[in-house]
């Protein structure tokens, strides 16, 4: 579940932010409280069920005990009745008159005495038996019906004095007492119906319901009487005991044999309600549940309070850490005075805050100050310029920036070592600080570059400072025993004349500084002419990157012809840039830049790719070799041969159809590496040509070792050979030299027929130049070639005529 962001962050999750369904999103305090409550609940629930089971078990055991007690009470009740009735009967048996009647056999008196006495104590039957247990007299209405029962009961009655027996559908209790006068002369027997009062008594005393059931053989069991209220069906007790549901309530039932007669048994069923037995415990359980509830409530409140006590400081710590994150290191962290873990955490936070603040200070120092010289660095200088401009009024105020770059610093570093270089920089810094006025700012921008901010200075004043600097640099600096001459290029740019804002002002000052260095002119005040194209080059690189992606480069081809017969023999591939806003950009405007930045490698590959695509078609037109320029960077690229291989493969072009042109200076930058690359290229069948020959310092001896096939005489010599005899001599000797070395010679810069004619005279092999054709878009090349060959064939004279159309 994705939670609202507010719940995932501490500070926003206020007190009202009660958590959602997922525990993962709960606040810590809620989680602690919930977990505690859950555990408590589990324990309580477990306790509840254990207690509940125990209660159930105990209640049943107790009920079972109660039933046993009930049985005893029943016995006691029966005994009491027996005693009571027995006493009644004994009273009769001891009555003198009755004994006299019995002694004299006065049956009438006997009968009436039995009747009278029996009625007095509520007997259902009274009888007098003789010593042989035969009935002598019987009284009461139901008496005669009961007599048959007496015989089987007699032994039990003699022994115990009382017995219970079923007569018809009613249970009776009989008591029998001996009659003596003074010796045993007979027995007085009385029978009493067991009635509802007895079982009600039992219920009143024991709380158990008593039911008497008759189990006579040959008859279904039958309920005789019961203390159960009408809504509880006593009939359910007729057949069994154990656990018997009465109504909806389960009852435990215990059976007690009341009469011994196997033929007509009377059984007492004692029933106790399980619910009633459990009820007091249930009340206890409800109390317990209420206690649990209150406990949960208190516990919950306690947990939440405790958790809050823990988490609220955590919230404060989160706020503190957020403050640290936002860079506010000044507000101390709260809760550090607590003695617990939170306090320790808070102290750690506070410690961290102090440390971070210290480090931040150090970093700021590093960020704004130059360690070596102790001067402000570029960042601080820029900030100073920014704020100075911000404070100044363009209509009234001036300020100037002087930027200077030491000459030959690299040389000092290389020769004297970095330590000396550092000391030199420190010395320069010291001198600069001596020169400036109060309020001027001296900064080291990096390397050997320094800058001064001169608030309120106009151009004249700034130039004054610049000359003071130059003067200060006149005295050489002594490092150990070495003396170093100081000199620097100084550029001055003024605000608001040269630039409206800080970065532009710095950039203008830099431009002026480079101009000064180029001209070794000491100080140079910025002027817009210095800056031609400066903005242009800045945006060039990004534009160039786009140029290849957007296919803005164009392949141009400049034909080469054989000087001997004027036939087309080759072409030099050149790049032009069809800029979307600037139009066609000439190579001089972006190739040097591309060489500086290394982007030339992409351009070379692009050109090779396009040339390879054109090559087969050009070969048909007579172009035996396509010349492509390689830059220094290309030569140093060890992968170049492989990359070229891939391109050749892609276009099914041959290496032999290409001549790779390398300038002397390119080779001399890293001769060994260049030689390695050239050898690998040569092995692949590429022709190699030295471009601009004569302008560099390469030795012929060295060139001889390279697998070079061609020399290309620099156009400066060729173009000048008409006017300058010296140049002509160079051209001539170069051609001779090359031929002697077995190299082909190409002259470029052939701008007129005269030159061509002289080259022909000198035995130059191939020529290239505006006189023959300027570089042509690849698409136009075929047309030119056809025209050219057509012109040659029409003249049908030696090529030289064809090549000198203007002469004819």
């Amino acid at each position, binding site marked *: 579940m994705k939670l609202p962001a507010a719940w995932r962050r501490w500070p926003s999750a206020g007190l009202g932010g009660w958590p959602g369904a997922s525990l993962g999103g709960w606040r810590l305090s809620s989680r602690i409280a919930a977990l505690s409550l859950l555990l408590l609940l589990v324990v309580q629930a477990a306790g509840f069920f254990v207690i509940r089971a125990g209660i159930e078990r105990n209640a049943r055991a107790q009920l079972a005990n109660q039933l046993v007690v009930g049985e005893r009470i029943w016995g006691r009740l029966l005994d009491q009745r027996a005693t009571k009735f027995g006493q009644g009967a004994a009273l009769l048996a*001891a009555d*003198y008159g009755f*004994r*006299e009647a*019995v*002694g*004299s056999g006065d049956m009438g008196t006997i009968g009436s005495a039995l009747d009278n006495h029996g009625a007095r104590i509520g007997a259902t039957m009274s009888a007098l038996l003789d*010593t042989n247990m035969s009935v002598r007299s019987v009284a009461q209405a139901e008496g005669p019906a009961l007599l048959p029962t007496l015989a089987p009961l007699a032994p039990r009655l003699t022994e115990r004095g009382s017995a219970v027996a079923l007569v018809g559908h009613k249970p009776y209790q009989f008591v029998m007492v001996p009659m*003596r*006068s*003074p*010796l*045993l*002369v007979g027995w007085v027997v009385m029978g009493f119906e067991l009635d509802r009062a007895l079982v009600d008594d039992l219920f009143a005393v024991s709380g158990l319901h008593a039911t008497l059931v008759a189990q006579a053989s040959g008859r279904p069991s039958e309920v005789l009487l019961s203390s159960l209220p009408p809504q509880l069906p006593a009939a359910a007790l007729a057949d069994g005991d154990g656990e018997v549901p009465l109504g909806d309530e389960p009852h435990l039932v215990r059976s007690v044999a009341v009469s011994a007669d196997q033929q007509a048994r009377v059984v007492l069923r004692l029933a106790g309600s399980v619910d009633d037995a459990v009820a007091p415990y249930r009340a206890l359980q409800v109390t317990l549940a209420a206690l649990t509830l209150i406990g949960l409530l208190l516990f919950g409140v306690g947990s939440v309070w405790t958790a809050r006590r823990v988490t609220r400081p955590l919230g404060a710590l989160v706020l503190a850490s957020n403050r640290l994150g936002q860079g506010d290191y000044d507000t101390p962290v709260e809760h550090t005075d607590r003695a617990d873990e939170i306090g320790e955490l808070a102290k750690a936070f506070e410690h961290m805050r102090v440390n971070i603040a210290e480090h931040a200070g150090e970093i700021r120092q590093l960020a704004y100050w130059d360690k070596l010289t102790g001067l402000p660095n570029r960042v601080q200088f820029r900030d100073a310029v920014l704020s100075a401009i911000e404070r100044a009024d363009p209509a009234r105020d001036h300020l100037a920036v002087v930027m200077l770059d030491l000459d030959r610093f690299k040389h000092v570093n290389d020769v004297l070592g970095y330590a000396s270089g550092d000391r030199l920089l420190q010395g320069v810094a010291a001198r600069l600080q001596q020169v400036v006025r109060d309020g001027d700012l001296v900064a080291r921008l990096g390397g050997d570059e320094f800058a001064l901010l001169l608030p309120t200075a106009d151009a004249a004043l700034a130039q004054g400072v610049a000359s003071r600097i130059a003067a200060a640099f006149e005295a050489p600096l002594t490092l150990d025993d070495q003396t170093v001459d100081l000199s620097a290029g100084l550029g001055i740019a003024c605000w608001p004349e040269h630039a409206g804002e800080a970065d532009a002002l710095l950039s203008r000052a830099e431009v002026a500084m480079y101009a000064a260095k180029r001209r070794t002119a000491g100080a140079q005040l910025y002027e817009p002419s210095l800056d031609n194209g400066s903005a242009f080059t800045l945006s060039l690189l990004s534009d160039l990157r786009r140029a290849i992606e957007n296919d803005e480069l164009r392949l141009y081809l400049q034909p080469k012809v054989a000087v001997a017969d004027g036939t087309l023999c080759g072409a030099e591939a050149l790049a032009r840039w069809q800029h979307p806003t600037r139009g066609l950009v000439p190579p001089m405007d972006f190739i040097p830049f591309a060489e500086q930045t290394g982007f030339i490698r992409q351009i070379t590959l692009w050109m090779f790719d396009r040339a390879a695509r054109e090559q087969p078609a050009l070969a048909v037109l007579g172009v035996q070799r396509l010349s492509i320029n390689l830059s220094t960077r290309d030569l140093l690229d060890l992968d170049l041969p492989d990359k070229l291989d891939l391109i050749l493969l892609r276009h099914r072009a041959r290496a032999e159809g290409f001549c790779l042109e390398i300038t002397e200076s390119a080779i001399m930058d890293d001769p060994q590496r260049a030689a390695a690359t050239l050898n690998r290229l040569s092995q692949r069948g590429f022709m190699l040509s030295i471009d601009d020959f004569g302008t560099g310092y390469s030795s012929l001896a060295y060139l001889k070792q390279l697998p070079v096939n061609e020399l290309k005489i620099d156009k400066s010599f060729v173009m000048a050979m008409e006017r300058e005899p010296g140049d002509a001599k160079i051209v001539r000797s170069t051609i001779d030299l090359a031929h002697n070395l077995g190299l082909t010679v190409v002259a470029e810069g052939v701008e007129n027929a005269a030159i061509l004619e002289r080259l022909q005279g000198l035995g130059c092999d191939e020529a290239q130049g505006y006189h023959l054709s300027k570089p042509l878009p690849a698409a136009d090349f075929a047309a030119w070639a056809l025209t050219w060959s057509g012109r040659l064939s029409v003249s049908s004279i030696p090529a030289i005529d064809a090549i000198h159309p203007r002469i004819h």
Partner: protein
Amino acid sequence: MRLLSRRFTLASAVPMALLAAASAAPAGPVEVRVSDAAGRPLAGAVVFLESREAHDAVRPAQGIEIAQAGKQFVPQVTVVPVGSAVSFPNRDTVRHHVYSFSPVKKFEIKLYVGTPASPVVFDQPGIAVLGCNIHDQMAAWVVIVDTPWSGQTGADGRHGWPRIPPGDYRLRTWHPSLPVGAVPADQALHVDAGPAQASVRLTGLTP
């Protein structure tokens, strides 16, 4: 209560001696041996000889007492000739109420102390059971015999008469352990001039 007193009263002994002395006819000793059902000698059994001659010879005895002492009748068994008067002196400090519901002699002497004014005359042969209406545990038997020859067996179960005129007698035997209302055992006994012996096995005794 059923324990038998082994004491003999003068009431039975004296007349027999007188009869024996007065009779000139030949007579022999008679000994009766009484045992219980198991054959053990039965002490305290009342034995008497009945015959026409005995009936004619019987005379009431005088001065017979059944005292009440220690809430007991003393003696518990008294054999008297028919027509004898028995007095019931009360030697206890408590009162007694002596009664008999027996058909041979019903009477009651209501609460009294000392010797009641008139003795009770037992004028029919039979057995009277006496009780006290106040003390249920008190019981006594009066065996009224229609003969001058009666007696009670000793510890050896024997009783003898020294001189019994020859003739045919009914030997009757009774014991207080017999059930209430039981008739004395009856067997024939012929007495010659010589000594005669009889043995009686009495069954139906209650333990």
